[in-house]
């Protein structure tokens, strides 16, 4: 049976690092992801282990969908949720993000030091 893809609304836009982290910051959502690791599941099935209403779980699923971690697919009358782990890469981009940030920062520090008037005269052995 072919799947309709109209529900994969997160696919078209790029979730930010923040939405991914925010999605991962909640234990219920992490538990949902953990359950989706094994196979795709419908919302009713996802509700089972939680002492939560379906709307509450649906709200969590929406956060996960917005973060791009989960896609929802309509299969017949049921909405099936599927894990999409690729956005987890965003977390690792922190390091790249800060490498750029600090490289630029240290450049600016150098420029600042060069431009700053010498409050203390340089020592006699100072090299240029």
């Amino acid at each position, binding site marked *: 049976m072919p799947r309709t893809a109209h529900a994969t609304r997160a*696919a078209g836009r790029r979730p930010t690092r923040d939405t991914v*982290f925010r999605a991962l910051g909640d234990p219920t959502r992490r538990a949902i992801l953990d359950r989706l690791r094994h196979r795709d599941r419908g919302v009713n099935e996802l509700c089972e282990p939680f002492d939560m209403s379906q709307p509450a779980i649906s709200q969590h699923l929406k956060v996960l969908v917005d973060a791009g971690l989960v896609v929802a697919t309509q299969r017949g009358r049921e909405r099936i949720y599927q894990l*999409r782990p690729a956005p*987890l890469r965003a977390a*690792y981009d922190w390091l790249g993000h800060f490498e750029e940030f*600090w490289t630029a920062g*240290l450049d600016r520090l150098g420029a600042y030091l060069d431009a700053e008037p010498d409050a203390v005269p*340089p020592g006699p*052995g100072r*090299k240029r």
Partner: protein
Amino acid sequence: MKRDLRLERVYPQAPERVWRALTDRRALASWLMETDFEPRLGHRFTFRAKPQPGWDGVTYCEVTELDPPRRLAYTWRGGSGEGQPLTLDTIVRFTLTPEGAGTRLVLEHLGFSGVKSIFVSVFMKAGWRKKLRTTLGAVIAGLKDVPTASAPPTS
């Protein structure tokens, strides 16, 4: 897996001057960010950048090492706003050593493994002993782009 960042620079200025640029508020505002930093062990302060969508622009810090003009370290924590879970809990450390008349500055941004722990909590639980789904395993191990079989075409 521990993931740290380490950058090194040599500046022609003496360690005392580099130290001052690292610990003076006006200097910090000039080359880094607006801050209420004070060179005092245990001092809590923030760096403030322009807020962006999903980030309030605030980095929360606390001085953890202070040894002028040799070593300075502070925590570097970020969140998505008041009451939101912290998304980043790291340490920034500057080490200065004389190099001729100048200064070798080593910048370390440490503790990205803390970020990794999120993944550990998600994926390394008891149920995770079963074989990883290939896609997830690849993501965790190598973080390559791994389109799943049913992935919609990307534009």
